[in-house]
């Protein structure tokens, strides 16, 4: 059902764009194909990792680290991992879904997604260069706080 909605939205947007500017709309297909090739290596890596997760990792083992009982230390560890990792957000969602299916907690998954997308340790030098050290520190620091708060709230409501 959601897949149908997503495809309708994309096709609708394409039809609208096509009516406005044919050439640009057709070019977007090319851009999309290029983006696909760009994420393809990472896509395959993520799918293989998910396969390995289901083939070789026991639920008990995984839950010790990122399950309900992992506690504050687990959350903190995942927050730092998310901050350091450099995975396209698009691919973080299937990975997260697989971890949830294996018994990871909602709090942990929300922490992972938020810190992965908002905090960039790898891109920090670029951020400092463009926006200054003070702003970069404030932005990444507050994003860390945001990641923890958002995920704790999500753990409470879901």
């Amino acid at each position, binding site marked *: 059902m*959601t*897949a149908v909605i*997503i*495809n309708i*939205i*994309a096709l609708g*947007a394409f039809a609208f764009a096509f009516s406005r*500017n044919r050439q*640009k709309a057709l*070019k*977007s*297909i*090319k*851009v*999309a194909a290029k*983006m*696909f090739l760009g994420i393809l*290596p990472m896509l*395959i*890596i993520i*799918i*293989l*990792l*998910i*396969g*390995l*997760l*289901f*083939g*070789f990792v026991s639920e008990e083992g995984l839950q010790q680290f990122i399950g309900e009982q992992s506690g504050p230390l687990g959350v903190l560890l995942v927050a730092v991992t998310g901050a350091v990792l450099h995975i*396209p*957000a*698009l691919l973080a*969602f*299937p990975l*997260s879904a*697989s971890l949830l299916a294996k018994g990871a907690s*909602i709090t942990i*998954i*929300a922490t992972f*997604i938020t810190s992965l*997308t*908002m905090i*960039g340790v790898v*891109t920090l030098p*670029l*951020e400092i260069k*463009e*926006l200054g050290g*003070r702003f970069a520190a*404030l*932005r990444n620091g*507050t*994003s860390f*706080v*945001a990641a923890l*708060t*958002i995920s704790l*709230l*999500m753990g409470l409501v879901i």
Partner: protein
Amino acid sequence: MNKKIKQWVPVIALALISAVLLYLQPEARTPFGTTVLDYTMELIVVLPAVLLLMGLLSLFISNQFISAHLGSESGLKGMAVAFLLGTLPTGPVYMAFPIARTLRDKGARVANIYIFLSAWACIKIPQELVELRFLGAEFMIYRLVFTVIMVSLLSLFVEKFAHKP
């Protein structure tokens, strides 16, 4: 080494590791195989649409469009516009840094720049669609709501402390 070839090295390495592990542990083959197939199918039905949407957004929402609309409104409306504009572009957040810099140089509010960057990072529309597909509506909506609340509050905090000669 060519960059295009280089990015395939970890892929091949992981594929080889997987093959060895599966050879050594035959009982893992079925769960591995069905999972890989499942997730590949899940992605095939949404990824082309999401990428097409991203392609459209990247061509039709230009940096100039963003600069022209961000910072022209003030107060709550300005913050709402910053959120909205942040959800439209595509690409990782570091691509937004130069835009944010231009906006700041033009005198846009720090809170709005912070909101724009945060929205760009974690609540972009194509991204939210994939989240909806894989994690469900409940997860997506709660994360969206909490993110908007937290980012709004923190934007004011950052604005307060960002100004220093």
